[in-house]
Structures are given as C-alpha cells and as structure tokens.
C-alpha cells in the first residue's frame, strides 16, 4: 500500500474533514526513523530526560559485547528468510534494556561470566576461546530447561532471560516485522476475516447481524438515527 492510499484511508470520512493544527503532509505514516533516532513525540520532558540519560550510559564491557554478539546470533540466526538478531541490532537493544530494567543487570553480567566459569571447568579455557562445537556443547546444557541438570540451573535461568530479550528484540525490529509477516499498523478498512480463513476454522458470521455490521462503503456517510435509535441514511 502506498503513501497516497494510506492517507486516503486515514482521511476518508466526513466531507471537508480537516485536522486542526496538523497538515496531512506532516503525519507521515510510513516514516521509519534512523536506527539511532527514537521518537520523542507525546513524551514528557521528564521521560525524555530519562531516555537520554540511559542512552548516554554504557553497561556492557567490550568483552561482554563480543560474547553477546555471538550468543544472539546463535539464538536467532540468519536463515533463508531473513537476517540474524545481530543483523537486527539486538545487542544495542539489550544494552538499553538492562539499564532500563536494572534487575536484569546482575543476571546478564553474572550469566555471561558463568559461561566462562563453565568453560574453564570443562575445557580449561574461557568461553570465547573455545571452538564453536565446544561453545555449543555448553549452550546445549542450558538451552533446554526441561532436560537440563540441576548443576546448570543458573545457566538455564540466564539463557531463558537472554532468549527472551533476543527474541523480543528481533521480532520488534523492522527486520523481525517483515520476517513475521505482521501487516498491520497502517490505515485500512476492516471488513472481517477472509473467507478462506473462516472456512479453514469452520466459523461463519451470524447472518442475523449481516445488515448490522459496518459496511465499508458506508464509512463516509454521516450517521443519523430515528427516534428509536435505528440508523437511517
């Protein structure tokens, strides 16, 4: 759907409808900001100040970022459909979230270090110095909570948090939206579930309500009622 169609849908309705104080060209609904720029629209000065402060601070060390970059790519790798969590900028998102929700910090810092402890115990080297197979053998110990042994409980908890942050970071990115196939957040006209989907799930619209539901072609007609509350015209 192009921008012109978007705007047509957005402003379909009352004839001569104009938005006070907002020109149509200003409300660019398809605008995607640069990765570094976040919207401050509708936010109070106090809220903007909080975000500015968090964005100016750094939590993870370079060594931790290196490990994080590796891990998010293991959790959400590139495939034939799309890029990886690293490609989608997930480590930057995690960096922000651990400052935004400080209770994550010790879990993340301690968890990243726990990987080194485990690597040293098993292979006598730190995690990032291991071969890929060795790293994966440690990840396999902690990635499946139903199967993991009690001796790696701390690792499981860390990996659950990291999986959550990585998955949500990826699927709330532009790349993740495209990969997921989410097609909303744009002006449109809802006219019910597609026919083939209704059939697939064995459901149908109540025929008694057929005349009552919104008809898309009526969406520009100003409503009027009779004294009994019946829509006329």
């Amino acid at each position, binding site marked *: 759907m192009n921008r012109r169609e978007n705007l047509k849908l957005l402003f*379909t*309705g*009352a004839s*001569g*409808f104009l*938005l*006070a104080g907002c020109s149509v060209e200003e*409300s660019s609904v398809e605008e*995607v*900001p640069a990765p570094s720029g*976040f*919207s401050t*629209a*509708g*936010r*109070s000065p*106090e809220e903007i100040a909080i975000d500015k402060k968090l*964005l100016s601070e750094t939590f993870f060390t370079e060594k931790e970022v290196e490990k994080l970059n590796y891990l998010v790519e*293991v959790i959400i790798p590139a495939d034939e459909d799309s890029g990886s969590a690293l490609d989608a900028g997930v480590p930057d*998102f995690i960096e*922000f979230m651990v400052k*935004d929700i400080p209770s994550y910090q010790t879990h993340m810092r301690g968890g990243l270090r726990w990987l080194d402890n485990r690597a040293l115990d098993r292979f006598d080297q730190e995690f990032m110095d291991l071969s890929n197979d060795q790293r994966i053998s440690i990840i396999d110990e902690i*990635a499946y*909570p*139903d*199967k993991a042994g009690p001796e790696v409980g701390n690792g499981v908890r860390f990996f*659950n948090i990291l999986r959550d942050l990585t*998955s*949500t970071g*990826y*699927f*709330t*990115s*532009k790349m993740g939206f495209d*990969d997921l*196939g*989410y097609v*909303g*957040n*744009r*002006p*449109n*006209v*809802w006219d*019910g*579930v*597609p026919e083939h*989907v*209704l059939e697939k*799930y064995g*459901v*149908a619209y109540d025929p008694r*309500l057929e005349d*009552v*539901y*919104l008809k898309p072609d*009526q*969406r520009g007609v*100003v*409503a009027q009622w009779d004294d009994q509350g019946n829509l006329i015209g």
Partner: protein
Amino acid sequence: MSFEIKEGSQEYDAIIVGSGAGGGMASKILSEAGFRVAVVEAGGDFDPAKEEHRTQLRFPWESPRRGAGTIRPFGDFDAAIGGWLIDGEPYTKSSGTRFDWFRSRMLGGRTNHWGRISLRFGPNDFKRSSIDGLGHDWPIGYDDLKPYYDRVDKLIGVFGTKEGIYNEPDGFFLPPPKPRLHELLIKKSADKANIPVIPSRLSILTRPINNERGVCFFCNQCNRACQAYADFSSGTCLVKPAMQKGKVDLYTNSMVRKVTTNDRGEATGVSYVSKEDMREYKLKSRVVVLGASACESARIMLNSKSKTHPDGLGNHSGMVGRYLHDSTGADRMAVIPDLVDRDRYNEDGTGGMHVYTPWWLDNKKLDFARGYHIEFWGGMGMPSYGFGTGMDTLRSHIKDEFGTPSPNGGYGAGLKKDIKRFFGTTVGMSGRGESIPRYENYCEIDPLTVDKYGIPVLKFNYNWTDQELNQAKHMHDTFEELLTGMGGKLLGTKPGKENEYGLHAPGRIIHEVGTTRMGNDPSNSVLNSNCQSHDCKNLFVVDGGPFVSQADKNPTWTILALAWRTSDYIVDQMKKQNI
C-alpha cells in the same frame, strides 16, 4: 502554558477543575450556555493530531525499550502521562490495606488512553440496594439519565447493536465491526456454555457523526489517542471544541490546592500552584465544578478547610472520601493450538475487542451479589516488548507435521520459525465486575505527607470482602470453561483462595468512584441528586465521585451523562440567580 495572573483579574462564571470526561462535558455545556469558563488542568496540553504529540501508528523500534511499560504502565506509546506512581506526587496507604491510584496528568486526563468501552448503566444498576439489600440506591434512576445517555451517544458516537437486554439498555449505535477470528471461536465456545457474546459497545466512530471528526481507520491503537479524533477523548471531543466556540480559558500545569470560600461558606474560586514557576495563583468564579477524578476531587474538598467547613468543604456529613470503590478484575489466558500457523492478514481492527459478554446470570442463585462482564483479547496484534518471550515454557505447544511437540527453550533457526508459527495463538479473558461500596473503604488526608507542591496527599484504606473474592472465583471458573471449550491449553495455574482468586488490587481497574456520593439524606451523602454539595450550593462534582454504586459497566459513559445533567442544572440555577 498557564496565564500570568496572580490574583483573579477577571471573574469567571464557572471554574472547572480537571479536563477529563466530567470536566470536559461541563466545559462544553456551560460555555455553550454563554458562561465564561476556566478549565484548570494539573497536566500539560495534549492534542494527538499534533505531530509532536502523536504516538499513534508508530512502530516499536521508535522506542528504545520497544514500547515496554518501564516508564508508563501501559508502555511508551500509551497516551497516559502519569500512571499508578508519579514522581513527587505520592499517596499513602494504611497498613494491611491496598489501593493503587492511577492518574493521567494531561489535557483530557485518562480519557486519552481508556478502553472506550461505553456501557450505559441499566435500571437495576441504580437500585442495587432494593434488589440485594447491600449498599444504597441512587437518588436517581435510569429514566433520569436516559435522555442524557441518548444525547451522549449522538454527540460522541458509540458502536454497538440493539439487543433488548433489560439491564444493558440499547442506545443510538453506529455499526459495529465484524468479529476477529479468535472472537468467532470464543463465540462458538460460549454458545455451547450458554454464555452470551454480543458486539462490543465502544465510543469509536465507524461512521462519522459530524464534519469535525474523522472515522476509524482500524489501527487498534485507541489507547494511543487518535490523530483523526475518531474515538472519544475529552480534549479532542469536548474541551478543544468548547474553546473554539465559547469563552473558555484553559489553565494547564496548574495544580489546584483548594477551593476558596467566603464567610458564608460559599465557594469563591480556587487556589492553584503553577508547576511552571511553583507559585500560587487564585481564580475567582460564581460556581466551582470539580471534575478532577473521584479521589482528587475528594482530596481538594478535604484540603479546603475553613471556619464554616472545618472538616473540609462540603464534608459536614463526614462522607467525603468514604465509599471509595473500584471495579473488580481477574484475567486468564490460554494457547489455542488450532491457531498455530495462521494465515497472515491485517487483523488490527478497532481499538479493544469487537465482542464482549455482558453479565448474564441471576445473583440470587450465586454466592456473590453483583455481576461482571467479560472482555476478550487475542489475535495478530502488533508485536511490542514481550513478544516472542516465554518460549522456555510455551514452545512445546507447537507441533511438527508428525505431531511431535517442539522442545521447550532451545535456540537457532527452529526457534525462530516456531515463534513465527506461534503468532496470534493466544487468547485471553478479563472479568470486570461490580464491587460492594463500603463505608469502611475510604481515602482521607494523610496528616504527615505532602506532595512536591506542598499539598497534603491522600491516604487510602481499602480491602476487598468475600463478595468480591467469590465473584473472582466465579470469573475464573467461567474463563476455564470458555477457554477449554475452544480447545485452549490454559496458561499458568488457576488462582485459589490463598492468592485471592487472582483478584487485582483495588484501583488496578482504574474505575474508582463513590468518594463524594449523591443522596437525598445530607447526613450520609455529600451531594444532592443534582451533584450539588449539600453544604455549599455553588460547588458541584462531575467526575466519578457522585456514583452511589459502580455497576459492572465502565463508568465513563455515566460520568458523561451525569456531568451533562449536572451542567444543565447549573445553567438553570445560574439563570434563575439561585447561585
């Protein structure tokens, strides 16, 4: 931007404190009657049509926290500047009691983000004491408010269907949107259980009602406030139009400290602290109308002590702050395995749910006296912070072509695919019920604590009773029946007595009312049946405070109807020179 007036250089006919549903309606009706009106709002100006205020149609990556609720309880894009906790504006609680107080400091208040569920109270809802012997009847009935509900429907717009249910009165409805897929599946399950599911009644314009506001373009983001003004919020639909047409001055960032009175005990205006320069200002008027929210209006009255009103303005009865009550709430969700691998299409729809369940049972046969309605959620909504999480327990609901479930947890391409296959498979239900108003549940002034403006704050005392607990228990039984009836795998465990059947703390449903209740007896009510103070004839309350009982309906439509009726009365009395 507040006006630079220290001492009232001009006298208003009416000062309205607060710009939410009640204050907004009063500003419209009083200004249309030709009166000179001041609206005094504690927060800043807000207009979702302005690009610098617009959060609608933004994507999660426009927020550094992807819309998480760290700062605002309902996330970065939610149009509520404020929340249950506001820096510098504390409140306290008596030990062993609970109450969470939600405030939106902005033009339009909480109407900017509310759920737009616009239900009329029914005839029974005004006369509950006559039906079950608990609490008190309202001094007015449905017939008194019906003409005003009718006018509110036509002025503001609400979609719905005529159902002919006695206690769910029909109105002047716009066409409802068709249900979404999960809503059709819920309806099918509810039919088996003999539980009604009918089209929602939401104040969202599926068709235009005038030439000033646009129509819904189905982004499902009413909580972000609408740039086309296609849903009801007080700023866009009432206050701003009133300012364009009438003599209305808006004072923003102005925190009212007290209502001023004269020797005869009549209101003379308000004193407020400007948040911009932290100085005190005074405004004068013939009438003061409080619409600051049930608790904030009670706080202002209790803080407005004088020789003639030693216990607070209009508080000779001692009832200001008493009978505080919120709706009950409990929720449950499930995974619907049949919905794995959904076809993709735009399922956003209007804000909120397209269908709901009104209260359907006879309380005489149950162990709780009042009913609840059920709200539904689910579908392929826009991912936000939290999407894709929980795969350490949820992933096993996804099966491969041979019926083998995926392992919980994991990583890699398989996990990535499974999260995509899981999209749109969860369905949830929220019960919202009527609680019993009690003298014992109240807010009062905390003698030891002030906010950063130096104004004494509220202290809350609130506990649920078995009435509410039994109702929440029943909600959960219903949720399980409906969810398992559609093949759902319930998530979490069913809450029991030890965790109060999952009943949310008072204040969490944000329907608190009753603190300045109306009544015919001045010894046990604050206002008369016209929402006029028994003790101070030029003081009125137009928010949720006057409610004698909060039905299982969301209160906004009744606040609007009641505020219109009260405003008509003020116009009448001022024209007759009675006030």
